[in-house]
C-alpha cells in the first residue's frame, strides 16, 4: 500500500511496553513517540537496558512474553500494527517492512544455504518474485551470487551481515529496522557496511530505523537522532543539531564519553554511575542521580519533552512549553 500523502510512513504514539516480572511490571518503553518519514534514516541510541531494542521489537510486533505492549499505537502506512491480527501482519512483514537482527551468526540458519533461506522467505509470501531476485539482492550488497550455494559458516562476519541485509531487501520494503547490525564487526568492516547501507538507501529509497549504542557510528549517516534513557526518549532532533548542541545532559555526556583520534587530547569523565533499575526508577527525572547539572526540582518533577530550538529534550533546564499534552 503506498504511503498516504504527507503522512509519516511510521507513526509511533505513546507506545508503552511492560515486562511482567511477577511483583511489579518493568516499564521498558515508556510513552514513546516517533515519526519516520519515507526514505528517512533515524538513529536510536542509548545504553544497554535503555529499551531501544524493546522499542524495535514492539514496532515490528515481535515481542514475546513476558513483554507486552500495554498502550499506544504503531501506525504503519495508515494501519495500526498493534491491533492487527497475525495473518495480516505476516503478509506485511518482509514485504513492507523487514528486520535485520544484531548477530547474523544466530539469525541465519546454519544448516541451510543462503539461497535456500532466501527461497523460504519468498515462499512465505504470495508476492510474485523473479527467479533472479536472490542473485540480484546479493549483488546489491556486494556479494558474488555464487554464495547463494554457500552456508553461513563459509562466509565471514561481514558477509553474513550483508547477506542478512540482502534478505531484508528481497521485496524492496519501505522500512528496514536494524538492531545493531555492525556491533560484531571490526571498525573497517563496520565503516564499509555503513557506507553501503547509506548507498542502498539512496538508491532504493527505503526508510531505516537504526539502533546502536555507539553514538559516533550514526553521526554521519542518520537524518534524525533519538536518544533513549531508561525507557524514555530524552532527546530527539536532526542528527547534526543534536551533535552540535546536545540539549539534554545525558546526550552531552554520551558525546563526551568517547575519545577522538584527532584534535587535542582532553581528559574525559564519561557518565558516573550506572543506568537505573527500571523496576524501581528514581523519582522525578530518571537521569537525575547521574546528572552533573541536577538541581533541587529534578528529583521532584518528572520532565516532559520540551522544544528547545531545533530539538526536543526531556530536561527541566528547558521548561517552557511541553511539546504535546499527555493524552492519558
Amino acid at each position, binding site marked *: 500500500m503506498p504511503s498516504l500523502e504527507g503522512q509519516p510512513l511510521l507513526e509511533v504514539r505513546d507506545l508503552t511496553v511492560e515486562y511482567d516480572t511477577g511483583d511489579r511490571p518493568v516499564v521498558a518503553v515508556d510513552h514513546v513517540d516517533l515519526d519516520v518519514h519515507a526514505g528517512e534514516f533515524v538513529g536510536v541510541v542509548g545504553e544497554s537496558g535503555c529499551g531501544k531494542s524493546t522499542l524495535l521489537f514492539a514496532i515490528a510486533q515481535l515481542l514475546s512474553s513476558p513483554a507486552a505492549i500495554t498502550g499506544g499505537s504503531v501506525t504503519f502506512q495508515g494501519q495500526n500494527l498493534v491491533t492487527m491480527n497475525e495473518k495480516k501482519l505476516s503478509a506485511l512483514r518482509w514485504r513492507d517492512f523487514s528486520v535485520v537482527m544484531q548477530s547474523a551468526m544466530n539469525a541465519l540458519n546454519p544448516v541451510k544455504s543462503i539461497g535456500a533461506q532466501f527461497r523460504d522467505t519468498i515462499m512465505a509470501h504470495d508476492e510474485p518474485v523473479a527467479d533472479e531476485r536472490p542473485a540480484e539482492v546479493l549483488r546489491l550488497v556486494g556479494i558474488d551470487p555464487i554464495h547463494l550455494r554457500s552456508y553461513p559458516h563459509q562466509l565471514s562476519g561481514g558477509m553474513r551481515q550483508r547477506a542478512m541485509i540482502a534478505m531484508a531487501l528481497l521485496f524492496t520494503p519501505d522500512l528496514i529496522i536494524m538492531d545493531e547490525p555492525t556491533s560484531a*564487526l571490526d571498525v573497517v568492516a563496520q565503516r*564499509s*557496511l555503513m557506507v553501503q547501507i547509506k548507498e542502498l538507501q539512496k538508491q532504493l529509497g527505503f526508510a531505516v530505523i537504526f539502533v546502536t549504542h555507539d553514538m559516533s557510528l550514526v553521526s*554521519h549517516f542518520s537524518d534524525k537522532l533519538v536518544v533513549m534513557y531508561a525507557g524514555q526518549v530524552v532527546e530527539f532532533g536532526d542528527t547534526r543539531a543534536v551533535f552540535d548542541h546536545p540539549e539534554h545532559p545525558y546526550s552531552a555526556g554520551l558525546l563526551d564519553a568517547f*575519545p577522538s*583520534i584527532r584534535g587535542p587530547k582532553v581528559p574525559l569523565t564519561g557518565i558516573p554511575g550506572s543506568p537505573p533499575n527500571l523496576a524501581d526508577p528514581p523519582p522525578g527525572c530518571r537521569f537525575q542521580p547521574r546528572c552533573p547539572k541536577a538541581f533541587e526540582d529534578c528529583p521532584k518533577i518528572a520532565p516532559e519533552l520540551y522544544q528547545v530550538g531545533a530539538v526536543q529534550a526531556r530536561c527541566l533546564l528547558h521548561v517552557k512549553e511541553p511539546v504535546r499534552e499527555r493524552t492519558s
Partner: protein
Amino acid sequence: MTSVDMEEAGVDTAGAPLLEAKELTRHFRVGRGFSRQMLHAVDEVNFTIGQQEIVALAGESGSGKSTIARLLAGVYKPTSGEIFYQGRAMSTYRSRKDQLSYRGDVPMVFQDPFSSLNPAFRVKHGVLRSLKLHRRDLTTKAQRFEEAERVIEAVGLSPAGDVMHRYPYELSGGQRQRIGFAQALAHKPKLILADEPVSMLDVSIRIGLLNLMAELRESQGVSFLYITHDIASARYVADRLMIMYAGHVVETGPTESVLQNPKHPYTDLLLGAVPDPRAPLNTGIEGDTGEPPKVIDPAPGCRFRWRCPLAVDRCHVETPLLRVLGKNHQAACHVAEPDTD
C-alpha cells in the same frame, strides 16, 4: 631536548624494559594428514614494554593480538622466539614456584566481565584466592581481608566491605570489569595484560575504565598491554601504539606520532574507518571490503598487498621488515617514506 621530545623518547629514558619479546612466533596446525597446514597467528614479532608504560596493541580480529596476550600469559608456548621478563628468558621458568611468581607478576584481565567471574561465588572469593596463592607475605586471614579491601577500593568500588560480599549478578558490567582489575591487582603485578577490557561495556562506562588504567599505572606502578580494536581509546590511554595486521606488527611508535603521521597504509585505513562525529565524513575507503586474510602457509611478500593502494612489484616477493622512519617510529612497508627532518 624539549619536553615533547622527552615524552616521545620515553622508551629510552625508562631504562631496561620490563618485558621484551624477540622474534616471537606462534603457529597453529589446521587440518590433519595430507591436508595439514600451518596457520601463522603471530610471526616474528619484536617489542618491549617498559616500566609503568601503557602499550596499546591494535588490529582487526584475527590479526593475532589475543594470541600475543596468551603467549605473554604463558597459556601458549611460542613456536619459536623468546619472551624475556626482567631480563630472564621465559623458557627458563620451569619450576612451579617460578611459574607462580611469573603469573602473579603478569596477570590477565579478560574481555567479557559477564563470563569471567564465577557466578556461584561472592566477589571476595576470586580476590582472596589470588591473595592466598600469590601473596605469601600475607600470613593471616585478617591481613588478606584487609588487602582485598584495599585493592577493591583501588579500582574505585566503595564501600569495599559491602562490594566484597555481593555476587557478580548484583553488579553492573562496568563494576564487574573493575573486579577483574581488582583480582589482577591482588597479585601485586608488574604488567597487566588487558585483552579488550572495555569492548563489551557501554560507551558511557568505557571511559571510566580507561581512566582507571591510567590511575593504576600511577598509584600502583604497573605497566599495561592494552589490546583493543578501538584506536581512539588507545590514543586516550597509551604511550605507545603497535598496529598488527595478519600476524605481523606493521607499525609501532609513540601513539601521537603513529596517529598524526601514519606511515603504513593499513594504519591509514584503520584511522579512516574510526567514526568521529567531530570530523567530516571520510569516504575514501568505500572499495575496501574489510576482510583480513587468514595466514595459512604464507609465501613471502607483504600480507597487506592485496588491499594496499600503494602496492608495488616488490611487495609481492619480499616481506617488508620494520624500518625506522621517524623518532622511535617504525613501519614495515617498502613504500613508506621516512620523516624528512
